[in-house]
Structures are given as C-alpha cells and as structure tokens.
C-alpha cells in the first residue's frame, strides 16, 4: 500500500510538474521544492491533489516547503493523517 501511494505521487509529479521530454528523474528522494520542480505557488495544487485523493485536509501550518520537499517527506506527512 505504501509503495502504491508513493508511486502514485511520483507519477503525479512527473505528469503535472515536468515537461513531457524532461530529462530529470523523480524518485522518493528527489528534492521537489528546493530544486524548483514544484515552486511554492504550485505546492497548493499538489496539496489539493493529496487532499482530494486521500480525503484529508492538510492545515496550512503543516504544508511547509520542507514537508513537501521530497515524496518521502510527503509520505511522512500523510502518516500523520493515517494515510499509509
């Protein structure tokens, strides 16, 4: 299940935030925010995706650049909402 969620998020990031012919690789440890793949404004759409997909509400104080910086960090955040 955890692997499925992880892959789902990775695939979403690739589809929505990378160019079709992008050369970057995205895995669970790839920096997303600090590398600029997902900027601070776009983070809102990633947050909306997670909320919608897992039927949760992530409060703004938990939606920090650090919490969203890698898929692994996002997985840790989701654990707080019992999404594993």
């Amino acid at each position, binding site marked *: 299940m955890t692997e499925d969620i992880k892959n789902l998020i990775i695939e979403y990031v690739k589809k929505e935030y990378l*160019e079709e*012919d992008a050369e970057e690789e995205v895995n669970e440890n790839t920096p997303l*925010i*600090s590398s600029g793949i997902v900027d601070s*404004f776009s983070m809102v*759409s990633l947050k909306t995706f997670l*909320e919608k997909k897992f039927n949760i509400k992530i409060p703004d104080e938990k939606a920090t650049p650090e919490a969203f910086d890698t898929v692994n960090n996002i997985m840790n955040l989701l654990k707080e909402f019992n999404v594993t």
Partner: protein
Amino acid sequence: MSNIGSYDERYSKFDWKISIDELEYGKNGMYNIGYYCSDRIVEKGFGDRIALIWQGFKGDVKEFTYNDIRVYSNVIAKFLKDNGVKSGDRVCIFMDRIPELYITFVGILKMGGIIQPLFSAFGEEALFTRLDDAKTKAIITTRKHAGKVRRIRERLPALEKVIVVDAEGQNLKPGEIAFNMETSKPVDSFESEKVGPEAPSVLHYTSGTTGKPKGALHVHSSIIAQYLTAKWVLDITTDDIYWCTADPGWVTGTSYGIIGPWACGVTQTVLDSGFSTEKWYQFIEKHKITVWYTAPTAIRLLMKDGTNLVQKYDISCLRHLISVGEPLNAEGVIWSEKAFGKPFHDSYWQTETGSIVITNYPGMKVKPGSMGKPFPGITATVLDQKTFEPIKTPGKVGLIALKPGWPSMFRAYWENKEMYESKFKNGWYICGDRSSIDGDGYFWFVGRDDDVINTGGHLVGPFEIESALLEHEAVAESAAVGKPDAVNMEVVKAFVALKPGYEANADLELSIMNFIRKKLSPLAMPQEIEFVESLPKTRSGKIMRRLLRAKEWGQEIGDVSTLEND
C-alpha cells in the same frame, strides 16, 4: 556612516549629475549599460574582484570575477552578432537563475540588443503572448524550458533563433542552436555598441487590468538612477557581499539583481533554489552576506519559522536589510529588529519606474509600516482621484504620482502609445497605487487603484487569467480577483460558472488549477476556485469584478447600481 549621509541634505541639494560624474557616464561617447557593468569595473583595476557567487540547490558553488563577466559577456555578444542578431532586435532570456542568465544579460546589452527577460516558470501561453507582442527575434534558454518554446515556435514568425545554453549539440531540434558560454573561445576584446543614452535596453512585461500584458521599455541611461539608488538606498559598497533574492524575470531582479550592483562593482550572490528558511540562513552564513534585498512574502515565511531558528546560524554579518514587492507590514519590520537586530527598510517602485522611487533610507528613522520618503531627484505626491490635483492634507488618501523626468522612467509601452499616454494626468505619472502622506512626509500605502492582483510581490492581470480560464473545456464564464493571504498579501481566486453537463467537484477544481498553472504560470494559478451559477454583471454585460473582490476583502460593496452601469 551610510552612503547617503543626511537624507534631508541630499534631497534639498540633489542633481542627477552626482551619479553621472561618479559613473563617468557618457565618457568617450559610451552609454551602454553592458560596458558599465563589466569593462569599466575591470578598467578601474578591479578585474579580479568577485562579481558573482552562484549557488545551486545542491549546494554547488561557482564564482565569476569581473574579468570573467567581461570576457564571457563578450563571448555572448559576439556569438549573437555572428548569428545575425542586430542592434535593436529583441532577445528574450528564458532561464532559471543560472550564471548564464546574468552574464547573457550583459552580453545582449553590449551588442545593442533589447533584452526581454521572462520568468522561467511562465507557461507556453504566457510566453507566446509576450514573444508575439515584442516580435522577439531570438530566445536564449535551457534544455529544461526548450519544450515550451518548441510548442509555440510555429506561431511566432519573427522568432528566428532559439539558442540553448546547456545543450552541447544533443537533444536539440532542427533550427535550434547549441551554445556554451564557458567552453566557447574566449573573446578578450569586444567594443560595446555605441548606443545613445536614449537607446532601448530592457523590455519588461507587466500586467494591467485589461488587455494583454504590456512591455515597459527602458533605456540605457536608466543606469544613472539604478546605480545611485543601489548606492544610497541599498547602501552597498565594494566591501559588501550583496544578495537580491528576486528573479531577473521581474524588474527587481534586473535593476537590483544585475545593473545596480554591478555598476557599483560589488560582489553579489545568487541562490538558485526554492524557498527554505534554513537554506536561506545557511546561505547568508556561508557567504557572509552583508546587504540583503528581499520581499515581504519571504519575510513573512521566515517569521512563520520564528526567531529560534535564526539563533542556530551566525548571521551577524548582515548589516542592512531592504524589502520590495508589496508593502511591508509593521509586524515584519518589528520582527526583523527582534530576529536580526535591525529593521527591514521598505522600498517602493514598479516596473515602469525602473528604480526605487519612495523608500526608507539607512540612517533615517523607520516608521514601521511606512513606505518612507521620495528618493532625492524624485518629486512624489498623492493626487485627488477626481481632480488629479495634489492633496495637501496630511493623512488623506490619493493616487501616488511622480513628476516625469527621472532617468530610469519607462519611455513607452511597446507599440502601445495610447496605454502609455493614459498613465499621465495633469503632468504627473500615475503609479496606479493609493497612499497617504503624513505630516513628516512619509508615504503610507493603502492599496492598488485597479483590479491587478499583487501576489508575492508580482503583479498578475485578471484579464489574462480569465481569458485562459475560458479556454478550459468546462468553463462558461469566469472572474479572477485577489483575495487576502497571510503570506503572499494576495492570491488569485477564480469564480467560475460551468458549461452545461459539467459538475463542480474537487477533480474539476484541480484540473482548472493545473490548466492555468501550465498555460500561464504558477503565480496566475487560482489558489481557490469558487463555482457559481452565474457572475454578477453590469447592464452592459461586463463582469463586476470589483464587487467580487470587495466581498473577499470584507469591504463595503456600496452602491451596486453604479457598478451595474459601468
């Protein structure tokens, strides 16, 4: 002692000749900004001084001396000329904050080109609109962003050259040119184009309430104001390590992220990384940054992480802090005194002004929450909104207006004379913002005078968003307004009425958000979408955006009947 010394004395005895003399501007018929940002510093004997310390998001660092800037910008200038780019041609820079961006900027100026800097996060439609308007001849980009150019190139007949700076020949499509600044043959000597002081230099696109974004055209003599404001407001000296956090896709990133600091011969730093409080403090500590020019949005994000985090780092190197982009609230000033032992100095200006026009100065009392006072050489006032006469009563709100004539004032909107002329009333340039002036001459920002959305210090035009929204298959009509946001001051909110057969739900909301993000930019992406049955309209059918905005801000809606007749 600060560079400006006594503000009152400077203001009363001011002459732009101070800047012209210090720069030796026009000596031997040379007016080209490119020369003043590179060759001149080397000729003065500072070729070995570090001009640029660049750090990537992985922590990798590159340094360039002023002589490096001189030689590499020569390489770029020669390359462009050899490829048929001529003086006066528009050349777009479309890159992340990599060293090539900064040095290419100087190179284009040297060969007489007009730079069109565009934010690399722009989506293809935002890019198309601006390249099409400027009839841009060449674009300089990277592999990462080349895809966006490829998808619109056929619609841009004027775009002859697509130059990719990190390609080395691989992964290019037909008609694209690979160019590597560092591995190209060095060009030790290149005579900068002998342009006149009024020759166009930079074309920055900015958003308005109506119509497409417009190109504010600046000229080479803008450097007279950019140099002196960098010296007197940012207070930079050649002993400083300076950090401007703005992206050169926007005017702060060029006027004070390239021209001002390099004309002063200072060492400047660039962090090409997304925002992270810890990374920013580490960056300041590592490079011993002394002067820091950033934005209220960033300051508010730092505030969220508290003062305890500041204590983890030795950032006592900081000596002067300045802010720009949107008004800095009093809390930000007070917090920075607590966190860094010194206040942020708010500065006010805009794309059209080209340089700081109203600000707080080192050595002058900071009134937290105030924009400060006009720069010496700038006559600023607030005008009555109906008569356009200056308001004499302290505290009364009016339109911020400036007497035209300062060196960095924009000279035109690109091929839009009517729009340019509409910005002037009664001999004043109208900034489009409202403020009051207190009894001590300090300006106090109130808000914008139009529907333009200021999000994170960037202006976003509602018209451009609404036009793009209508291209989404589910959208029948829409309105975009700014809604209050604790960090970004405003964020985009869209009101959307759907076409028959579409159902309002979270999937559709996300689909519309991503549609706008990719088409225009992350800044333009609505952070919230409210689905409505229909939108309030005037009797002539115009959407009453002001009414929607007033609701978001909890303001009095007032007499709707007047709006209905708009």
